């Protein structure tokens, strides 16, 4: 769904995360970029260079805010200070939607600064949906929630992750930031079929999609955001676009960050899929998006294959 009520009826195209090593390039060269995603917390300060740079970027580019520490799934009440600062930033950036993660990370006032996975229980559905509604009411912009990558599952879980995500967004009446790299990482760590996940989520609620790279270790995959997007993730992306339509897409690259041009070029690969989906939209040709993508982007690499064999997908 290119434009829907969860992304403020926008049609944003392909963006990249705004990162400090690229500030100078962006401000001096003014490259053409559809949009930038900012980490909200980096700019929830009272003054100084972060806000000066942000204001210059806002003047020339479309900005979307992405948070990392609202912790919708924490039982702790929301922090008033956090909410107030977030709303101030929303007024500054005019972000058409606001995203954060479907996770928890704080308890009894102490913050782990990590995106910890949820136990997929009915109690957690209630807690999480209620807090998303509170943030949405307070900030007065659509809130979308992102699935996280995870390395652990809980005995307490009563449903799958995709069922949990769906229950939460339906009850909160909010949108989804579908991170296909996170789905892939979790699918390998927990041995499920990532396409089952992508095929299950309510497509009409998907406001944005994240793509990223990850790192493979002997026994698990880590969501490191320090590589180009791998073919297996592009395949999932193709399926997501096929289901959701040409959706605002963002490449995350947070570590070992290469040049601006390299990051942007990697992100722009998504256009092949978006274009195919747009062309296929009237007839909903189910295979068009995948078939029209360059073969090299979709073919498994050697390391992909090795992992697929060891991952015992259902």
């Amino acid at each position, binding site marked *: 769904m290119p434009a829907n009520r969860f992304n403020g009826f926008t049609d944003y195209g392909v963006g990249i995360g705004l990162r400090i090593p690229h500030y100078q390039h962006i401000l001096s060269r003014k490259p053409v970029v559809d949009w930038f995603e900012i980490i909200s*917390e980096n700019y*929830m*300060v*009272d*003054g*100084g*260079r*972060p*806000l*000066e740079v942000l204001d210059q970027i806002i003047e020339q580019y479309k900005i979307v805010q992405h948070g990392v*520490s*609202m912790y919708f799934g*924490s*039982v702790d009440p929301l*922090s008033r*200070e*956090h909410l107030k600062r977030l709303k101030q930033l929303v007024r500054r950036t005019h972000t058409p939607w606001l995203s954060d993660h479907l996770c*928890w990370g*704080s*308890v*009894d*006032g*102490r*913050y*782990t*600064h*990590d995106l*910890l996975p949820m*136990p997929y*229980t009915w*109690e*957690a559905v209630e*807690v999480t949906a209620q807090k998303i509604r509170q943030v949405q009411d307070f900030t007065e912009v659509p809130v979308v929630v992102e699935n996280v990558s995870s*390395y*652990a*599952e*809980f*005995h*307490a879980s009563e449903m799958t992750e995709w069922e949990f995500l769906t229950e939460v967004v339906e009850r909160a009446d909010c949108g989804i930031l579908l991170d296909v790299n996170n789905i892939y990482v979790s699918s390998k*760590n*927990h*041995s499920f079929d990532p396409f089952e996940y992508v095929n299950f989520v309510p497509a009409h609620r998907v406001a944005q999609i994240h793509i990223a790279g990850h790192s493979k270790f002997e*026994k*698990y995959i*880590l969501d490191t955001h320090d590589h180009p997007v791998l073919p297996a993730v592009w395949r999932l992306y193709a399926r997501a676009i096929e289901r959701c339509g040409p959706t605002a897409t963002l490449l995350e690259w947070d570590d070992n960050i290469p040049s601006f041009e390299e990051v942007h070029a990697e992100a722009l690969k998504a256009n092949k899929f978006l274009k195919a989906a747009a062309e296929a939209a009237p007839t909903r040709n189910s295979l068009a998006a995948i078939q029209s993508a360059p073969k090299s982007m979709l073919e498994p690499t050697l390391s992909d294959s090795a992992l697929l064999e*060891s991952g*015992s997908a259902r």
Partner: protein
Amino acid sequence: MTEPSSSPTSLLEVQRRMAAAVMHPLTRQENMPRRRRDGASNIAEAEAIIRPNDRLSSFERLEIYNRQYWYRLFSCFEEDFPGLQAILGRAKFDRLMRAYLTDCPSESFSLRNLGSRLDAWFDQHPEHLGPHPVLARDMARLEWAHIEAFDSEERARLSAQKLAAIDEHSRLHLQPYLRVLALSYPVDDLLLQVRNEDGSATSSTNNASSTRKRHHVRHVAALAPKAIHIAVHRLENSVWYKPLSPEEFHLLSALLDGKPLGDSIDLALSTSPLPEDQRPAFLQEAFANWAMLGWFTS
């Protein structure tokens, strides 16, 4: 054989028990300890909360998060206090960092505030200040002031008209980003050196930076005490260290405490060796300078 733990029965219990494991200090080998400091078994606790899979045990899965927690905090703390690390050396800094972050876990949504309690924590833990405790503490104070000056609010400057109308009863407001420090060592120069060098390094673990850090430790050992007063402030969104005279320091400190102008001047000059006839010129110059820097706000 580990004693079994009962499984958590509520979301809050899951989060409390998992956070206790995730935030528990790592071993020296940077693994999750099998037994916690209170004697509880992390193996049993992991098995009670986390499902194993065909490749990783419950303990190993929880350990990923335990490591991630500490690595993230270490990285942030090292970035905030490179000068303190240069003074203490890698090993002592590492022990300090682990002890402080264990005692003072983050209570803010922002990692920016991670070091906010360090100076107060040193009151209770002077053993972590190393062989040059005054020097180390000076550096920690300067580094925290730098963080505060970097992104604190900048308010509108006091207009020339309002500035001309102040009298001895006026309470002058100063910029929220301004910090003044009385230090026993000239740590400002050392910090500038460390920051410049770190800024040019691509990785904190490469050989070149290790060599520089050893150089810092030797340099620090030879650093002689010298009382200094400085203002840590921001100009055109860069942080600056401005040397102050003792009179300037006491005057600014009194103004920052909210004292009226007349009382602040009296306090600043009460112990000053500055001759009476030079005091008007001193005050005029100081206020003109601070006004030019935009330190007075409405």
